[in-house]
């Protein structure tokens, strides 16, 4: 159980996130994930029952692909926690339309710290060590109610730590506050600016109004990080390349990074590199599975994405089957220089004809 020592974990979370080869990383991650599986099996009764039913409670895991997974939707149906109620310091909920149930994720002090540390390590790799002046493509009220962290609010709060002079680009009517923007740009004419927003918000409330009014703004030093899923944009036939190209034309932003993440695994996110690939950091990994028999698919073949993360210590969310499809593009050899697996997300599993099942609604991926 020595790998579970918080000091060990904290040390590992401070390491450069993309420097280990896949083999080196899997070796370390396997220890963490195996320990987490056993720990949650003992501490979360529901998860323990699942391990028992699968006959996998006391197994030694020889590869990260041996770690059992649970479907991410279970967090919408059950309260899954591995800590007593008095240790919960924060509860995260997923975004979700009114008709859908939301995921509830219970964090203790350690897990919350691990999430922050992992995110810091990853973001620094893209933003540098210094805190940058920050623009948020949202309105200030989105984080007003700190008691209930919506996914959008939580995502913004999490990323605010990487900026200074945090400024909201939209006013409460969701319109671009041009005055604020102008002042902000006058203040920071030359240095890099960190811009964060949810993919849909950036498109709907930054790009579209500019396009409709035939306006352009000029933030060539901007680094845009965005997430939240492509579902709404897919309906408008906007893919990542279109998004980047169009946005650059209107705003001058050249450095645009999507990331793949979900409320069930906050912190160990998958950032898009300069080559347009999503990268696994040393804290988390993905496995592509064949829906036919859950076997592991080779690189280049698309299947259901399983996400593994060493961060969830307060809830059994370290190995999850998502409802997204993806493909591993390569391992250790991305032109950007980052090691580990890199991949692309193809979107949600298409909904089959609903044949009368009462619970076929899927979760929204959210940061």
């Amino acid at each position, binding site marked *: 159980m020595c790998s579970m020592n918080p000091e060990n974990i904290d040390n590992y979370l401070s390491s450069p996130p993309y420097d280990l080869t896949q083999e080196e990383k899997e070796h370390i991650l396997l220890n963490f994930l195996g320990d987490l599986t056993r720990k949650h099996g003992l501490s979360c009764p529901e998860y323990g029952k699942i391990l028992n*039913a699968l006959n996998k409670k006391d197994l030694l895991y020889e590869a990260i692909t041996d770690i059992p997974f649970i479907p991410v939707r*279970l967090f919408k149906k059950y309260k899954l926690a591995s800590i007593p109620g008095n240790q919960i310091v924060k509860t995260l909920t997923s975004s979700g339309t009114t008709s859908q149930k939301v995921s509830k994720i219970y964090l203790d002090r350690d897990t919350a710290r691990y999430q922050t540390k992992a995110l810091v390590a990853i973001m620094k790799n893209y933003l540098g060590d210094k805190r940058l002046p920050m623009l948020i493509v949202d309105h200030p009220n989105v984080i007003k109610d700190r008691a209930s962290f919506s996914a959008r609010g939580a995502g913004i709060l999490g990323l605010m730590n990487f900026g200074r002079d945090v400024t909201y680009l939209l006013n409460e009517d969701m319109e671009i506050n041009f005055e604020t923007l102008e002042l902000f740009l006058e203040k920071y004419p030359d240095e890099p600016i960190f811009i964060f927003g949810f993919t849909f918000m950036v498109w709907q409330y930054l790009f579209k109004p500019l396009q409709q009014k035939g306006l352009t703004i000029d933030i060539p030093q901007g680094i845009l990080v965005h997430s939240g899923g492509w579902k709404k944009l897919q309906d408008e036939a906007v893919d990542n390349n279109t998004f980047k190209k169009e946005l650059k034309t209107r705003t001058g932003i050249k450095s645009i990074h999507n990331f793949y993440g979900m409320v069930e695994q906050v912190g160990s996110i998958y950032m898009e590199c300069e080559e347009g690939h999503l990268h696994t950091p040393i804290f988390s990994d993905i496995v592509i599975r064949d829906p036919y*028999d859950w076997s592991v698919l080779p690189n280049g073949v698309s299947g259901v994405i399983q996400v593994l993360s060493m961060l969830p210590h307060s809830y059994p969310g370290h190995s999850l089957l998502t409802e997204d499809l993806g493909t591993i593009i390569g391992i250790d050899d991305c032109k950007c220089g980052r090691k580990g697996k890199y991949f692309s997300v193809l979107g949600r599993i298409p909904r089959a004809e609903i*044949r*009368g099942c009462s619970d076929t609604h899927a979760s929204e991926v959210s940061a």
Partner: protein
Amino acid sequence: MSQDIINKLTVLLPRANNWEDSFFSQSTLPIADDKVLDFIHKLSQTILQNSAFRQYPELMAMGFWMRKAHILKILEDYLDKPKNGVRLARGIVFHIAPSNVDSIFIYSWFLSMLVGNINVIRLSSKGGEQIDLLMETLNDLFKLPEFSAIASRQIIISYGHDDQVTSYLSRNCDVRVIWGGDNTIQKIRQIAIPPTTTELPFTDKFSLSLIDASKYLSLDDSGKNKLIHSFINDAYWFGQMACSSPRLIIWKGEKEKIIEAKESFWKLVYNALSKELADISTADIVNKLVASQSLVIESQISLPESKNNLINRVQLNTLENINTDLHCGAGLFYEYSINELEELIPLISRKIQTVGYFGISNELLEQFVYKHMPQGIDRFVPIGNALDFSPIWDGYNLLSEFTRIVYSNK
């Protein structure tokens, strides 16, 4: 009918017709009228001879069911001539079809047509390829002059959930037939029908297969394969979501025999089942994973490892309060072992519909219900016949329900 209501509905059949109030004031037709028999016969021939139907085994089965000889046999077996009186159609039957792909409502519509009723069928907006093809064919037949009296007495409409329209049609019917889940039926029941109108609710039900382990093991290879084929048909048509689709397999016999029988049985099902045959989507498979792990959390079960996700098995260790709502079809099988039929009693609520059996005589099954008088079980059929429609459905003789007897004492 007010223009308001007319605007809300689409007439799917007969095409090009609009709703006219005179629809409700037509007379009914005689029971088993020659013209109706001819019409059903003609439809049967068209379905069986038209290659477009071949790809839909459900519709082919329907075509067989509609053959003249079979229809005449149904009339003979299920519709007795009253000793004292005359049998007549009830009048106007309002059918509310289920929203899933199940085409079973067509059978009840045709039985109602056969005994002379005027029929209004409400389809949910999306019909699907099979229904579309059937509508096309029906429309061609309805255009023929010899069938005009039948065509004028049938109307298929579609409208969104709208209480005003449902209320209007309910006020004007003599029988209301509702196919749907418990919620749908409860909602529609809030909408009044006239005091003299009767109602046939066909709600969601749960069905099982019952297999005697020793009898199964004593089959030769071809016997086993035949049974497996029959079972696959029962289980995988309609994505295992029809009320009669078996979702629970009960094994009867000694423990050792059951272990041996299960191993052989599932191995053969694996071998016989292909992706094409199973027709399961990735979304279905994820739903099955959610369902089976939810069951683990909610009750005491175990999950044997499956070779692939066309078949997923869940071992129950009690039949009491089994969760049927979590079941999403697509090849998910609950399993349980018994020594004696009496052990089934805790399971048999009113929700239990079909028991597909193998290796147990139906005399024995009849004795079982006679003796224990359970709340549920609507039918016993050999494995392979679970999805066959019969004029006795969910405990009702439909031909009786769709008619009335004018009593006459000599």
